[in-house]
């Protein structure tokens, strides 16, 4: 399967490189560390950049989602134009030129667009590890007993601070300043149900797509669709 994956990546080279670029740019914009910026490697990282697995849900989602959307749109527009031209309008190759200076180039244009569209489709989805990381952060994160205890403490401390402020204000005293003892602890939250629902479909699509892509199945699907379109 790895061979098939690599073959699909090298056959769809333009989109493989571009996918790496989108991922790189997205990581840069989100300040996610890129550890290896080579887009073409003879392993499962082909068409991706190696970046740290972020623990931020937002970043984990966007790092997978933004390149997927961009390549998805490119696949839709380029592939859609090529598909319609070749299989809906049935544009045929121009006949041998008979002194005509203006042979329609539509056929070749649609061939190129279709190839690019298929390329982007085959390189649409995130790295499987990224998709799993995103899924895990969104749907499989459960607070440990320590985290829950820590959360309770933080909440209690906040409530105490609030009460202290109220009392101080009522007595006309100066508001007591919060003691700074090292780092400020933050509440560790589980993903809200609203976010889970909102991001379920894109996350599921990315997870499934990345699984298919990992095994070179998106490439196989593209070939099957192309053959069916030609035959039908």
């Amino acid at each position, binding site marked *: 399967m790895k061979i098939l994956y690599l073959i699909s990546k090298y056959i769809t080279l333009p989109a493989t*490189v*571009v996918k790496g*670029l989108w991922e*790189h*740019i997205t990581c*840069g914009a989100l*300040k*996610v*560390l*890129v*550890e*290896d*910026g*080579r887009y073409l*490697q*003879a*392993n499962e990282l082909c068409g991706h*950049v*190696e970046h*740290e697995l*972020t*623990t*931020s849900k937002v*970043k984990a989602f966007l790092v997978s989602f933004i390149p997927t959307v961009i390549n998805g749109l*490119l696949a*839709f*527009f*380029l592939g*859609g*134009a*090529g598909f*319609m*031209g070749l299989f*809906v*309008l*049935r*544009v*045929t190759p121009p006949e041998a030129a008979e002194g005509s*200076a*203006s*042979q*329609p*180039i*539509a*056929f070749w*244009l*649609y061939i190129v*667009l279709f190839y*690019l*569209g298929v390329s982007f489709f085959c390189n649409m989805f995130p790295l499987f590890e990224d998709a799993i990381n995103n899924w895990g952060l969104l749907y499989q994160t459960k607070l440990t007993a320590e985290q829950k205890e820590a959360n309770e403490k933080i909440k209690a401390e906040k409530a105490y601070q609030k009460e202290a402020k109220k009392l101080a204000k009522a007595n006309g005293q100066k508001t007591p300043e919060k003691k700074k003892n090292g*780092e400020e602890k933050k509440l560790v939250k589980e993903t809200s149900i609203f976010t889970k629902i909102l991001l379920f479909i894109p996350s599921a699509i990315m997870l499934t797509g990345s699984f298919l892509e990992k095994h070179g199945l998106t490439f196989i699907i593209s070939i099957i669709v192309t053959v069916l379109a030609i035959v039908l």
Partner: protein
Amino acid sequence: MAEDTNKKLGSPENEEPQKDWEWDAKAPDAPLETVELSQLDFAKANEADKGADEEDAPAAHEPGCCIICGEKLRKSPSELYCNVCREKFLKVNYGARHIILSIVMMFVAVIGIVAFSATSQIARNISEADNHLENGHIARALDSYNAVDSTVSSLNSGFNAFIQGISSNFDTVTVFDSGIAADKKIAEIMVKSMTSAYEDREAFMALVENSFTQKELNSEKYAHIKECYDFCKSMDTTANAIYEEWYAMLNERLSAFDENGKLTDENAPTIEEIIALLDNYAEKNPDAEPSTIDYYKVMTVYYEYASFKSIEASEMMTHLNNAYSKAGKFGYFYSDYYLSFAWECEDYDALVKVANEVLKVNPANEGAYFYLTKTYSQLEEWDKASAICEDLLKYNPDSLDYYTLKAEVLRRTGDYSAAVDICKKGLKIGEDSEIYRQESIAYMLNEEKDKALEIAKAAYESAYAASYSGGTISLEVLNTTALISYLCDEEKTLYNEIIDMLETEGYELEDSVKSVIKGDTTFEDLFTTGKGDI
């Protein structure tokens, strides 16, 4: 060394390609200039190394600390590195090639979006046409398929204007193409609406040759296209073989008549001789397409009939019947002539039979509806005439003929105000001199002379305006307008103008109109009895 350490360790330029990430490989590349030799605790390091070797496990680090420098991670988003080490060792920046690639991709994306919108515009035309075809609106479908070509032309001219706007040195290129899908559909429609006209046959054959492969034509799916194509081809071969000789003889005969239709040259070939020529050809060439031979016989008689009326229309019908029957399932090729001559010869049974056969092939054939309505009106079968009008509208929602025919049926049944209403409705859809004419007749029959004159003028002006854009002024419009002007206008301005125009063109008013002017018959008689028209 300083130079080396300033470089980012993860950048592709500084690394040999490696299959997997090697965590241990990073540690020795730590910035040496920041570490003093004296600061290193070799004893601890050796001990640690020893322990590590013994356990044969990755070096453990304290949770919450950087695996490189051992400092606390603090707000680092990474679980392994502190922010300083992240920035220092691991970040890979963008290079010039990334920027170039991004710009190239923007161009590709723009081309993709333009190509997508252009192609989807063409595909939308085809989809609309398919929907019309499914609903039996063949005329609309044909319009939509033909709109594909105009969309493609405008896209190509727009593209060329764009590239020549960048530089006039660019040649004109044909980028967009409508493809053969639309052509195949047009061919399907043409099969149903073919006529014997040379131009139609040529257009159909060219379309089939360009859109279908031989394999497709031999398939069952396109058998009907192949059959029609073969019939057209056979007609063409026969027509090409006989045309020159036939035309030379016919021309010789027609030239032998003077302006009054009197034969001046006794040696000119007779009709029988021309028909014998065609028969001889058919005898010598058994492969000749038989209906084409009869079609030329019809034409032989028709020219003389149309020019000099020196022959009976029924003679045409004999040859036309032969052509129609010999063409078999493609008899509808001759339906235009057949219906027209059958109407003229008042052979209503034959007309109704052929019109219904034609409608089975092409339910949107406007000619068939036209003559059927006229025939049922003539036979005073008003319900049938009205039903035929509704069928015409069903299959041709944009047809203006519906409004003229319906108005005619209504006025002939005495419902003048309904006739006026239907004309007004039709004029909202499209201006047509024939609708104005029907409206003016309805007003006239309703004794609203001022309105009738006003609308008759509008009919004349509409026809006149249409003639400037390639249309023709029908004799019916001229005769009706002249008659209404004569009857309603004291000064008879329009009447005189039309008479002058007809004289200039070598025409005169129709006998039926003349008889109304003379007072032999009335306007009501002309438009409500008999054929009910001029």
